[in-house]
Every structure is written in C-alpha cells, then in structure tokens.
C-alpha cells in the first residue's frame, strides 16, 4: 500500500495546499482579481494532476502535444467568442 502510494503523495499534498489557498482567497475583497486568482489556482492544480497523476512527465513528445491540443482548441473557441462579448460590453466582464 505504502509503496504504491508513496510516489503520489507529494503532488497530492500540493493539490490540497492549492485547494486551501483557492478556498481562502475566494473571500478576499479583491474584486475582479478573485476570478483570475481562482482560475490560476485551478490551472496549477490541473498542471499537477496532468503532469504527475496522468504521467505526462513520462510520455514522449507526441502524447504531450496530443494532451495540449484539447486546451488549445478550447482556448481558440473561448478567446475568439469572448473577444466579441468583452469588447461590446466593456467593464461588465467581472463584478
């Protein structure tokens, strides 16, 4: 049991620290920065999960690229679509 779990405990502790920070920072009165901070922590958690738990650190270039394309496609869709919304309604992106 210990031998199977030991390599994964480090990333897990990192995840729990990031979760605590996410939860604490969510009530800070920093306005629109709340969303940016929360998404940054979510991105860092995703990085830990993908790199360690999903073993991307052991994969070759082909699989690393394949792992990135989902994110790239999503970003293309979100950025192009939201560029319109954000520029038409300035100042209403975040509370």
């Amino acid at each position, binding site marked *: *049991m210990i*031998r*199977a*779990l030991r*390599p*994964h*405990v480090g990333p*897990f502790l990192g*995840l*729990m620290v990031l*979760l605590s920070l*996410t*939860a604490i920072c*969510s*009530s*800070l*009165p*920093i*306005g629109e920065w*709340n*969303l940016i901070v*929360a*998404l940054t*922590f*979510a991105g860092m*958690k*995703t990085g830990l*999960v*993908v790199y*360690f*738990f*999903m*073993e991307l650190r052991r*994969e*070759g270039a*082909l*699989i690393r690229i*394949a*792992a990135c*394309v*989902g*994110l790239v*496609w*999503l970003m293309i*869709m*979100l950025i192009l*679509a*939201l560029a319109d*919304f*954000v520029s038409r*309604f300035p100042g*209403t*992106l*975040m*509370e």
Partner: protein
Amino acid sequence: MPEEPVVIEAPDEQYAAAEQQKEAVTLGMWIFLATEVLFFGGLLLSYSAYRIWYPHDFAFGSRHLDFTLGTTNTAILLTSSLLMAGAVSAGRLLNRRVTVVLLTVTALLGIAFLCIKGYEWHTAIEDNFWPGTVWPAAEARPGGVRLFYTLYFALTGLHGIHLFIGCTLVFGTAFRYARARIFEPNPNYLKLLGLYWHFVDIVWIFLYPLLYFIGRSS
C-alpha cells in the same frame, strides 16, 4: 523515486512491440479526452457569455450554493485521484490486494461525491431553482438566475454522468481483479482508466471556482 516494475507482455498482433501498443492506446485516450474538453467547452462558453451579460444574477445564484459542500467535494475528488494513481502503481507492482482496495475506495469516494452532489441538487430543487419551475422571486431576477441554474444543472449533471461511468468502470475492474484466478492486470487498461478518472477530476477543479465563487467576496 523507485521505478515500478512494469509487466512485460506480448503486444496484440497489429503492433510491433508492447511499447508501441502502449503509446498508441495512450495517444488514443488523450485524443478522446481532447474531444471531452470540447464537449464541456460548449457549456463553458455559454456560461462565460451569460456571466458577462448577467454578472449580478450569476452572483445571486452562486451565493445560494453551499460553499462548504463544494469545497468538501473538491477534496474528495482530489483524494480519489491520489488513490487511483496508487491503484495504477499497485497494478504494475502486481499487488492484487492493494490494487483492489485502492480501486474500491476510489469508487466509493466517487459515490460519496455523487451523494453530496445529489443533496445539493435536492436543496436547489426544493428552493425552486430547477429550470422551468415557477419561482416567486423570478420577477425580481428575470432570466439571469435561471440561466445560472440551467447551466449549473447542465454542467454538474454532465460531470456527474461522467463520474458515474467512472465509478461503474472502477468498481467493475476491482470486482474483476478480486475474482480473477490469476492476477495479471493489463497495465494499459489500468492506465487508461486512471487517465479518465483524473480527467473527470480536472473538470470539477474548474467547475468548483466557476460555480461556487461568484460574488463571494462582495
């Protein structure tokens, strides 16, 4: 870090080597997960657009969700991911007992998540937030709150279905391994099961701040 012994087995006939088969199935799974990202992406785009249109209504809807339950559920899923990663390692170590135990607890944590989620849904439906129900406060908050809750039910529902599928697969695998006469787990299968489970975890990592955090600080 000690490297786990990997089971060397003959590849299926269309592959030149076991290593090639492993890379092929891993690539296939990552491509599938990329399509899943876009599957959720459509809803996330609607969410973003409507949140820009109705920032105050989204904050109103979000404040009605239980922040503690959301945080607890995040911790549960992160823990389940740890155990899932451990189960993949234990399978490579050919340790049947640990593999079966870790898979079972992983699936149980998934069920615990779904139970808490179900309780949250129950509360939201009791408060008449279910789309299409007559809600007395609707006149004060036209449109936006309902859009938030429509997206809330759609996003968490879609995520819940994925998690339910994951629990079924993980339970089934644990059962199969526990019953097998000889324990010789297919390391590729366990790895792909892990990839799916971690992906579902990542979806929730993003849904958690997007659904529970709006207007918390104001």
